[in-house]
């Protein structure tokens, strides 16, 4: 059973990654191109590793095959982790249908893993960010993702326990509120990263960041819905024999 769930997670992740690639290519690439143009025209062009003499991979490859590889592999990896998380959660947070569990898990994971870290450390286009601080910025970003994930898991477990006493509404609300407060306090305490050059156009930055967030939204939405449909079949098929009373199976 777990093998089937995992394979379907990888498959859903692959399709979600492909859809997100198409979205990123159409919506995101224009602002990446503009930013690279600014970077190469700017004074620090040689320090950034995109100078003409260092072009190991051409822009044509980066924006097509490279983009597909990066986003596709990300989708597959996230799909695998999502399937494992789904297996832990399904039937343990509540008596929800597989596709509803998958949709709620995808929405929650998007907020915890992508949206909240993005609000503190937003995506940056090329030409934004000093090369010397990449180590610190990477540590801060992944540190905050890990912290947010840990807080999210604690909130889910606590919410489950609270729901038994106070009902699903209040339990869920308290858990979500607790997560938001804890994440906000953590975000306020962590160091600020502000490395946008003064001359970088605000509209390009906005377009890029919006496209970046929307790419992730496309990926997680497709993953949640596709995996939900796949899991529905796998678990329903497994359901019929041992648990479901005769006559109920296959009715919905």
């Amino acid at each position, binding site marked *: *059973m*777990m*093998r089937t769930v*995992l394979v379907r997670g990888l498959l859903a992740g692959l399709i979600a990654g492909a859809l997100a690639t198409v979205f*990123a290519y159409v919506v995101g690439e224009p602002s*990446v191109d503009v930013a690279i143009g600014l970077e190469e025209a700017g004074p620090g062009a040689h320090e*950034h*590793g995109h100078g003409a003499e260092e*072009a*190991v*991979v051409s822009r044509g*490859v*980066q*924006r097509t095959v*490279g*983009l597909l*590889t*990066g*986003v596709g*592999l*990300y989708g*597959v*990896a*996230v799909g*695998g*982790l999502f*399937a*494992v998380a789904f*297996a*832990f959660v*399904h*039937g343990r947070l509540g*008596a929800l*249908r*597989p596709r509803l*569990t998958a949709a709620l898990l995808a929405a929650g994971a998007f907020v915890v893993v*992508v949206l909240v*870290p*993005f609000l503190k*450390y937003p*995506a*940056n286009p*090329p030409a934004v*960010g000093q090369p010397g601080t*990449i*180590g610190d*910025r*990477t540590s801060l*970003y992944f540190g905050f993702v890990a912290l947010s994930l840990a807080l999210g898991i604690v909130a889910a477990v606590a919410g489950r326990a609270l729901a038994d006493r106070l009902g699903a509404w209040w339990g869920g609300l308290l858990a979500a509120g607790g997560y938001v407060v804890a994440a906000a306090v953590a975000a306020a305490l962590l160091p600020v990263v502000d490395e946008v050059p003064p001359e970088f156009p605000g509209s390009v930055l906005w377009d890029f960041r919006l496209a*970046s*967030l929307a*790419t*992730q939204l496309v990926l997680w939405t497709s993953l949640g819905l596709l995996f939900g449909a796949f899991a529905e079949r796998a*678990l329903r098929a497994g*359901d019929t024999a041992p*648990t*479901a*009373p005769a006559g*109920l*199976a296959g009715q919905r």
Partner: protein
Amino acid sequence: MSQASIATPHPVPLRIPLREIAPWAVFAGVLALVVLFFVSTEAGAVELLSTNGLVHEFVHDGRHLLAFPCH
């Protein structure tokens, strides 16, 4: 009628036993983290393979658009 209303509620969802999940969780977790490392960080903050930034350059656009710190 009360009999029918007891029989109709949602079927109990199938729980996958934790013992069955655990080995797959470790397997998928390790593989996924390796893949995510190469997509997000290799030849950025850390370089494990000495490819002179090739991995970084290849997945460059995906890394930026997926919101990872790139360079």
